[in-house]
């Protein structure tokens, strides 16, 4: 399973616009993290501090996914199962609909 999760994060990161792809447990514990440069750690830390709160919000409001957009980044938080959540951070160069299709495809492969 861990290998499969690693494969997912690696595959997402093969898109040149993706700078971080990570999988968290629903309680906010990171399981697999793929990061392209140290400079993205601060964004990841900020996101980690929000993960638990966000996941609660998503569960309470039946949200399919949550997206943040800043001037330079697009962040997608997407539940993979009842206990796992995928976090993708890309630069603003990203084709946003390609990213969504990639995330949905990987969820179907994982089939959890």
């Amino acid at each position, binding site marked *: 399973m861990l290998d499969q999760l690693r494969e997912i994060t690696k*595959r997402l990161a*093969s*898109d*040149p*616009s993706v700078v971080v792809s990570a999988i968290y447990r629903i309680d906010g514990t990171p399981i697999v993290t793929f990061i392209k440069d140290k400079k993205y750690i601060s964004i990841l830390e900020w996101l980690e501090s929000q993960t638990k709160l966000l996941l609660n919000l998503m569960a309470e409001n039946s949200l399919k996914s949550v997206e943040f957009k800043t001037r330079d980044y697009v962040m997608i938080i997407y539940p993979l199962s009842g206990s796992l959540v995928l976090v993708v951070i890309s*630069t*603003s*160069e*990203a*084709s*946003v*609909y*390609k990213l969504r*299709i*990639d995330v*949905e*495809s*990987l969820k*179907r*492969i994982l089939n959890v």
Partner: protein
Amino acid sequence: MFEVYYTQEMEPRKALEDIKKGMGFEPSLAIFFVAGKMEKPELLRLNCNSISVPVEGIITPNGVWSRGVLALVTDADASVRVFEGNAKDVVGMMERSRIGSFNLLIYPLIYIKSKLTFLRIFLSLSRTKSLDKASEIFGEIIYPMNTLLRPFRDSKKTALALNIFPLEIGIGIPKIFLNGKSIGKSILNVSLEEKLKCEFNDTYPERGKSFEETLEILSQELANAKRVKITKKGLAIKEIDGKPVKDFLRENKIFIREDLENDLIQQRFFGASPYGICFVSKETYGSAPLGVFDYELKFYPSLFDTDMFFDDALFAGEFIRGGVKRVLENVRETDFAIFDHHFMLMFEERVVEIIKEKEISYGVFSSCPSFAGRLKRKLMSEVENSIYINSSLTMAFLNFK
């Protein structure tokens, strides 16, 4: 004289009133670009040749809108000719017709008239094993982008084609009207005697001088690029690397849409894909990508004639290195711009930055405009001499002065 008017009124009679208010001359031609759902767009008519075309968005000095009507009107010497038949017949008719200095082609890129047509095409495709036959069958519903531009290139005239392929396609869609009547699967040629300044561009670097060089440029440019071999003929694609398109996508862990019949009938066929095959031209080493979906099809349709492309190609995901900044380098300040609608899907609300940064007065987001004419740059999208096509991320700029 060319003027542009717009309204966000979606009731056709009221929209027409709004548009007429500011009009200071008797037009000889009116083209109404309609964004968003409108009941009876055929009612958008003036006392002249009037065309109504669906688009995904309109650009006005106030911003970009997904609802509203933009009217391009002129009193110039303009004729509108209608051509109907398969691509070969239409090309012949165009060659024999009088071609003006500037030509605007408006036509449905794919048109399935009825559910019956869909079932007939589907059954014919499933019964045949021949790629030639499959290409012939697709020819009943597709006008290949490159083929249609050849008469204009050969007569050394300029042509800009609006290959209408809405994001949401269904049976009998897109609906294009000429003087209140649906043109169905026909081609309109709006031909102007006067020369109109028209520029065309894409978002790729210039093409290479050989097959390998172009492939290398594209590999550096796009996401998840992979060299593949295509089994193809004309408008039909049978296999990618020896596998049906769906199986190839599954192997590459890509899931997009699956139920073709249901999607078409419910008008939920989504006419855009971020993954495609980048073909390389044998004639110019230019390239045109073809978006692919994972529908269960024995043969996959191409929107352009693939015969002048190599069998080896690149499978890749959509990506523009540099994002909006890079697009801005390719956008010209203009009176009227036509952008491919993939820009909206890729960059969403950030497309407004493109319009704000450059002085674009008016325009539309439609599907992959193509072009025939002479350009100085060695554009990637020039796939035949003086013919520029691409199934995504092209743009054209018209100047009226």
